[in-house]
């Protein structure tokens, strides 16, 4: 019976011109049972309960291996399946057909050609009336945006190297972007983009570099994303767009960064750099911070520091360079005072004195430091000096409290010595008294 069924399936597939591997005899019935079981269970517990319909596509493909079996397996967890869509919605055909010939009827389209994929997906996703039935919140302009993207433009020119929907979203195991295993979930995006953009062979046809993802992984943004698990940290699509993905132009880079760093942007806009950069057509933020490999900014990036970037444009001794130098020195002095106050509190804490109030006050100085570091974008040493002045007052207060705490620790120890000596003397006096009583 089993052999008969296997032969029947093989002959049908051969007739359809497809080369497949049928599972070994022993495993075949198990797979059949588990396949049928899983399909049944998924239907039973599907969020959108469709009437239990026959799906001969899945019935057969779940028994197949490799490229003909994998899609059917992957489709079990596909978001489209959860909404009740099935194979025929993309591939055509008749899933009710008992026979392979009946299933692959006139409507059967097979796998869409790569260049046609955006249109196939767009046939539903650009149809607001259709999409409203399933997810009214979902945008329906993805296809339009796609055609404006670099990917879409390349595809339009007939080069199917360009990414299409399935390259980013997957094919049969498509998930929504808020599902952590989805290719479009925040921390999977660098890998998704890198699948093409880091592949030197694949990108041969393009003039683009292939080190962006590696550079991104060294950035402070990647650190926030992967180490702190901050899903708000920017990934590729936050700067380049997703469906309308394209590199930001020189003039737009600053606005891209301003999405998250508006304050730094505002300060920059009123700095002398703004006019100069505009005139020289230099992209604003990128000029000092880079693009993909944006590392944690440091005070040492200012003039005269270890990572001096001012000297790239300004010669030592010039007014702008001196301003940078002054800013760095003021910051260094503040950081040093801050660390001193912090160490003082830590020392008092180690000695057992409660300093949480002083530590709370120290946070104000930390806030000032953050604000001043941001203020360097204004290139205004006088403003920085004024703000650091407030910070120094806070640090003075913390320092006084820290010294008081250290004094308190000394007082406690001295008090302890006095009290302990007193108690021991008293104990010794008692000992002598007891001895005296015993002798009597």
């Amino acid at each position, binding site marked *: 019976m089993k052999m008969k069924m296997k032969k029947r399936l093989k002959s049908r597939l051969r007739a359809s011109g497809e080369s497949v591997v049928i599972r070994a005899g022993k495993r075949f019935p198990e797979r059949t049972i588990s396949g049928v079981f899983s399909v049944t269970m998924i239907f039973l517990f599907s969020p959108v309960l469709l009437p239990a319909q026959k799906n001969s596509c899945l019935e057969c493909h779940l028994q197949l291996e490799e490229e003909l079996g994998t899609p059917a397996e992957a489709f079990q967890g596909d978001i489209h399946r959860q909404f009740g869509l099935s194979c025929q919605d993309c591939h055509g055909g008749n899933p009710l057909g008992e026979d392979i010939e009946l299933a692959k009827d006139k409507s059967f389209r097979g796998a869409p050609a790569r260049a046609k994929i955006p249109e196939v997906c767009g046939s539903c996703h650009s149809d607001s009336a259709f999409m409203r039935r399933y997810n009214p919140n979902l945008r329906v302009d993805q296809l339009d945006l796609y055609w404006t993207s670099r990917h879409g433009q390349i595809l339009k020119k007939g080069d199917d190297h360009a990414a299409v929907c399935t390259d980013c979203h997957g094919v049969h195991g498509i998930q929504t972007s808020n599902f952590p295993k989805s290719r479009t979930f925040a921390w999977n995006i660098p890998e998704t983009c890198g699948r093409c953009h880091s592949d030197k062979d694949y990108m041969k046809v393009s003039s683009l570099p292939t080190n962006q993802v590696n550079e991104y992984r060294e950035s402070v943004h990647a650190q926030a994303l992967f180490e702190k698990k901050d899903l708000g940290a920017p990934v590729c699509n936050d700067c380049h767009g997703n469906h309308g993905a394209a590199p930001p132009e020189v003039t737009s880079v600053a606005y891209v960064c301003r999405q998250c760093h508006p304050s730094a942007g505002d300060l920059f806009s009123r700095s002398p750099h703004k006019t100069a950069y505009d005139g020289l057509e230099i992209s604003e933020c990128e000029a000092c911070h880079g693009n993909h490999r944006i590392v944690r900014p440091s005070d040492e990036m200012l003039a005269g520091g270890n990572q001096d970037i001012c000297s790239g444009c300004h010669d030592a001794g010039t007014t702008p360079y001196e301003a940078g130098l002054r800013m760095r020195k003021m910051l260094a002095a503040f950081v040093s005072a801050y660390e001193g106050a912090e160490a003082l509190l830590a020392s008092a804490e180690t000695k*057992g*004195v*409660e300093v*949480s*109030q002083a530590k709370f006050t120290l946070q104000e100085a930390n806030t000032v430091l953050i604000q001043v570091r941001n203020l360097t974008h204004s290139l205004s040493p006088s403003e920085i000096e004024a703000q650091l002045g407030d910070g120094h007052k806070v640090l003075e207060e913390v320092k006084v409290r820290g010294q008081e705490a250290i004094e308190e620790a000394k007082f406690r120890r001295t008090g302890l010595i006095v*009290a*302990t000596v007193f*108690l021991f003397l008293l104990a010794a006096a008692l000992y002598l008294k007891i001895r005296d009583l015993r002798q009597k």
Partner: protein
Amino acid sequence: MSKWLDSALSYLEDRFKLSALVDFGRKKKVPQHQHSFWYYFGGLCLSLFIVQVLSGLLLLLYYVPSVDAAHESIGFIMGQVKFGWLIRSVHSWTANILIGAIFIHMFSTFFLKAYRPPRELTWVSGFFLLLVFLAFGFSGYLLPWNELSFFATRVGTDIAGTIPLIGQALKAFILGGPEVSGATLSRFFWLHVAVLPAAALTIISAHIFLVQTLGMSKPIGIGETEEISFYPHFVLKDAQVWLLVLAAIGILCVFFPWEIGEKADPFAPTPVGIKPEWYFTFMFTTLKLVPAHLFSVEGEVLAILVFIFGAFLWMLVPFLDRRTSREKKSPIFSVIGFLILAYIVVMTALTYVRIK
């Protein structure tokens, strides 16, 4: 000066007849032998209790028993109140040393078989004092309303909730609701500063009365020994121990002031490695290690029942150990005692090895 003192003493003597007490102390004898050292732990427990009462009274001046202010008031005591750090650290350290001293006192009494007639009720009252002081520890632990105490209380009351029949009702009564909340803090405060002190004072009075009336027990097999008077000899020696322990508490408080911890956040997940105070850890670890089901009964429930039954038997030891009542040695009880002690020590140690 001495004239003033004499007249003051005479004034007191006329009214309180203190000489009768002194005479009683002089007549009362304390046997001296190789195990006399253990006698001092009873007095030490009393002195530490007095320290607790005094330091607790001072803490009451600033402590606020509410969810919004409890943690903050402890921070204020530790950071702003003059010598507040000392009072609070003394209270917390002494609480732990006191429980330790009670355990030592109890086991020394057990191994010296000091519970044998006519001192059965002294043992029983001591057993109730142990329960009272464990309740002191459990209720006091929550009062700073910090993360560790909050979750340890949650774990502790969850365990109490598994006691068959009365568990859920008991848990609801302790917590004042289904969860650890402001109501729980109020109840624990009420218990800690009103109910338990009253209970402790009553039982301690009975315990001391029995000790003073019946005198110190001499271990079995120790014949005629040297004796010292309770007053002034033993009292002075006792005072010597108190002074040394007080000095040790001072050192602990200065070098290791009791920490405040993070304020409890009821919505935060339970931190990893949460555990109760050390004197409950042997029971806590047992409950963690016990299999899910034993003899078709839930393991945890069975373990709790065993602990309750074990405690009950422990209270009845003077009545169960018939040999000692006939002044005969009872090695079986000694072995049982050693096994229990070893179990407590091993399980306590295991808690700190397992939880990192």
